[in-house]
């Protein structure tokens, strides 16, 4: 059996264990029915259903997105299968009081990287082995050393362009946006009851898919994710129009890293950069 095979088996046992002991109301994991070209999330309520659990290198989705859903919250304590990148998102949710640590059972999975070819985020992944979980399955994977400049390659690439070209590039990209809000739906950190888009007194962002509104929308999303986005890459992956949304978030992650030495999601107790200040922050550029 392949490495994933053993993991699947271990996952099923852990899930069965939890469900039979009534420790959790639901276990969220990945399932793979025939004919699907990637694993979809499954919600197991009873021990018998654990057979549906599977772990292979197509389990892209960030299951943390379901933790903030009221329906799931109503099911009581939740078990969830988390890869390293998913766990970073869970940490942000813990920090923002969306869930309480005692309400969630983390089943960590040692993940060496998914997708053929490897997803870009897995190449620079620093969290192959998740920490702080309740249960961990799979063998520990040796963690390669990731240098700082490797982290924000997409953003660096665009930033290298001169300002006019950058403007042209983004005008072209953003004009493609059809405002389907898939990026919002898939992002675990976009859990607002009523998104700024739905506010019309006053209307912060024009809702028509015109580049004017699109720019405002993507600026708003970038600002809302500054110092929170953990770089799970889902928004870019699901964007039907293939807009390089990850680059914007990577740019803001780079800004926050360089200016405040802050990287999101590594602990549930850290302070989001925009909710605090330091008297020593740089004044450069202020008249």
């Amino acid at each position, binding site marked *: 059996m392949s490495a994933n095979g053993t993991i699947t088996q271990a996952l099923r046992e852990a899930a069965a264990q939890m469900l039979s002991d009534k420790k959790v109301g639901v276990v969220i994991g990945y399932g793979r029915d025939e004919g699907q070209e990637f694993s979809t999330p499954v919600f197991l309520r009873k021990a018998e259903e654990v057979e549906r659990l599977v772990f292979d290198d197509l389990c892209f989705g960030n299951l943390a997105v379901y933790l903030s859903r009221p329906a799931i919250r109503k099911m009581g304590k939740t078990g969830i299968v988390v890869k390293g990148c998913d766990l970073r998102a869970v940490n942000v949710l813990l920090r923002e009081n969306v869930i309480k640590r005692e309400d969630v059972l983390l089943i960590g999975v040692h993940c060496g990287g998914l997708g053929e070819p490897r997803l870009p985020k897995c190449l620079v992944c620093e969290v192959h082995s998740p920490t702080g979980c309740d249960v961990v399955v799979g063998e520990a994977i040796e963690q390669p050393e990731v240098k700082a400049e490797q982290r924000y390659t997409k953003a660096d690439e665009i930033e290298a362009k001169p300002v006019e070209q950058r*403007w042209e590039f*983004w005008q072209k990209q953003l004009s493609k946006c059809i405002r389907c809000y898939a990026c919002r739906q898939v992002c675990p950190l976009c859990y607002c009851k009523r998104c700024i888009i739905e506010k019309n007194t006053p209307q912060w962002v024009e809702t028509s898919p015109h*580049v004017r509104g699109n720019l405002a929308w993507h*600026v708003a999303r970038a600002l809302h994710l500054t110092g929170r986005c953990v770089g799970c890459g889902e928004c870019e992956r699901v964007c039907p129009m293939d807009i390089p949304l990850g680059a914007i978030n990577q740019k*803001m992650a780079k*800004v926050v890293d360089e200016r405040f030495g802050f990287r999101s999601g590594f602990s549930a107790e850290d302070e989001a950069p925009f909710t605090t200040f*330091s008297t020593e*922050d740089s004044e*450069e550029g202020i008249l």
Partner: protein
Amino acid sequence: MSKEQQNKSEKSQWQPRIVAFLCNWCSYAGADLAGMSRRGYPAAIKVIRVPCSGKVDPMFVLKSFERGADMVLVSGCHPGDCHYASGNYHARRKLLAFRELLDFLGIDQRRFKISWVSAAEGAKWSSLVKEITAEAQALGPFETFATMLQGEPS
């Protein structure tokens, strides 16, 4: 007249439109003092009073550009002097990060200015406004943004 002259003459009568968000306790009072001590400054500046520089939401800046501002200025109290203790510190952090985002998206950073003017610095206010108005004059109208605004939804 040649195009440049035209542009230049156009530019010479053209008045840039600068939106300035002034914190009520320091910069707004400084501007008030400048007035009281009869110090003139160009009318291009359009002042919006806010309780604190920390109250200026980056989206206001974007909205100002959307509404045709050629330059936006946010001015507050000197660090340490803020009437609300830490308002200007939060503003500094958020607005400087936002300016990097604008730059990343290709918007010219020089069109978004941040400054500290205290209630007693009437002189500094008037010289600051003269300076940024001249720069706005030099930068000329914010065409790139304007074209984007008129463009048809795709």
